């Protein structure tokens, strides 16, 4: 089985989003947004309710569940020392509103999102990309420039960072825009195999105990 690789420019076109299949590898070049904060996701929902302005217009863009150590120097220049993914399933409750509300075409992090999110993604032409957990050195190397930091009053990894990246990756397509989710597939398969695996364990155990 060979793996398809895509070298993509952001923002993604409709066609390039639909072209991605679960298990494909992707490198991204262009502008991304990142945050690892649960309070940030709550605050984004409040923005959609009109309680506050969004720090950035992310329409058609990519918002990833990545934490970063970001800094603003005295001359106002911005930098990021390292980035790395956080667990996306923590945001299962937020993403079905945030994906259409912010107009996201791409999201991602690690560990995937649930079936309700996958349905929202299929309806809105959005994909989920899996980042390597413990991939900070590789992912940080993809940063070209930090172009904005939203909500700087929050702690570093909760802020929304706008970053220009060059060949960020490789990232794995975990959920495609057709409703296919590697996470649902593997989870379903594991549940299906459970009885068979337990039976094998039982016979192996009887073998050693005989």
């Amino acid at each position, binding site marked *: *089985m060979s793996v398809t690789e895509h070298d993509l420019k952001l923002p993604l076109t409709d066609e390039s989003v639909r072209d991605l299949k679960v298990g494909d590898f992707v490198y991204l070049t262009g502008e991304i947004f990142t945050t690892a904060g649960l309070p940030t996701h709550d605050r984004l929902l409040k923005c959609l309710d009109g309680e506050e302005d969004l720090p950035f217009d992310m329409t058609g863009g990519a918002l990833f569940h990545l934490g970063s150590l970001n800094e603003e120097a005295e001359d106002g220049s911005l930098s990021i020392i390292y980035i790395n993914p956080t*667990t996306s399933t923590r945001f299962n409750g937020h993403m079905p509103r945030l994906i259409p509300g912010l107009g996201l075409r791409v999201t991602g992090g690690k560990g995937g999102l649930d079936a309700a999110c996958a349905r929202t993604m299929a309806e809105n032409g959005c994909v989920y990309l899996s980042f390597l957990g413990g991939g900070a*050195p590789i992912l940080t190397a993809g940063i070209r420039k930090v172009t904005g930091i939203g909500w700087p009053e929050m*702690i570093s990894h909760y802020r929304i960072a706008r970053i220009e990246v060059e060949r960020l990756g490789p990232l794995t397509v975990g959920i495609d825009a057709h409703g296919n989710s590697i996470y649902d597939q593997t989870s379903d398969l594991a549940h299906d195999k*459970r009885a068979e695996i337990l039976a*094998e364990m039982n016979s192996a155990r009887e073998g*050693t105990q005989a």
Partner: protein
Amino acid sequence: MPITDDMIIEATKELYSRALRKVPEDAKTAIAAAMQTETNETARRTLELQLKSAELAEKKDTFVCSDSGFPTYFVKVGSKAELDCDFKASIRKGYEVLVDTIQPPLLKHVTNPITLERGYHGKDMPIVSYDFESGADYVEILCSPKALGSGRWAALELFTFPSLETIETYILDVAIKAGAQHCPPVIMGVGIGGSFDHCAGLAKKQTLRPIGQKNPDPTLAAMEERLTKAVNGLGFGPMGTGGDTTVLGVHVDFSSGHGFTPVAVCFNCWINRRARVRMWGDGRMEWSE
């Protein structure tokens, strides 16, 4: 000559820093071995990427993962070690020095569970446990930074006179529940028996056991082999995107107890953060992992 406060401070600071930067050799060896047997191409490439990330972190002298978690230390005091130190104060001091001086800086991950406020310090930080080693003339400290990624999937259940089948079914179900979430391939630590609190400690310590070391107890060795095969048969794979490699090993230990039997399961993600030092009164410090 005794082991001093300065040595404890240096050990506390340096161990945490090392654990964040270096994937232990046994973990790298196990991942490299898994690449040879993994049949899923996406999974093989993810394993390869993990090794590359570990290598790059060492080369650039930076963190493998941005989430430094919170600090936990395991202290073992040799019965023949000569001491002139205040362990609790010096470990706290060592962690403070680390936070103030480490490069690159840490993110604020220490969380107050009541207010959810996050910072570098908090009540009872660092988490330290103490033990003794009969006959040893050294002090050993092991650091295991722990974060949400793999930490949140730990579980403990209490059974009464359970069969091995019941115990192993529970362990498998904990693995199914954790699924794709804990940055696989992981090490699963399992504790069986003892008391509620002791059992959790047994499981945790098993995640820190060297990978690939066969359990000297033949019953446990067979159990570990069965469980490793079973969990890998589930198919979650590296980073949960499918494959044959979900665990690098399942490590099991037990303690005698009563008819109620706690079973605890916890996980260490693929980077297996742990660093260890042994210290002697003559000033020697031997670092490992």
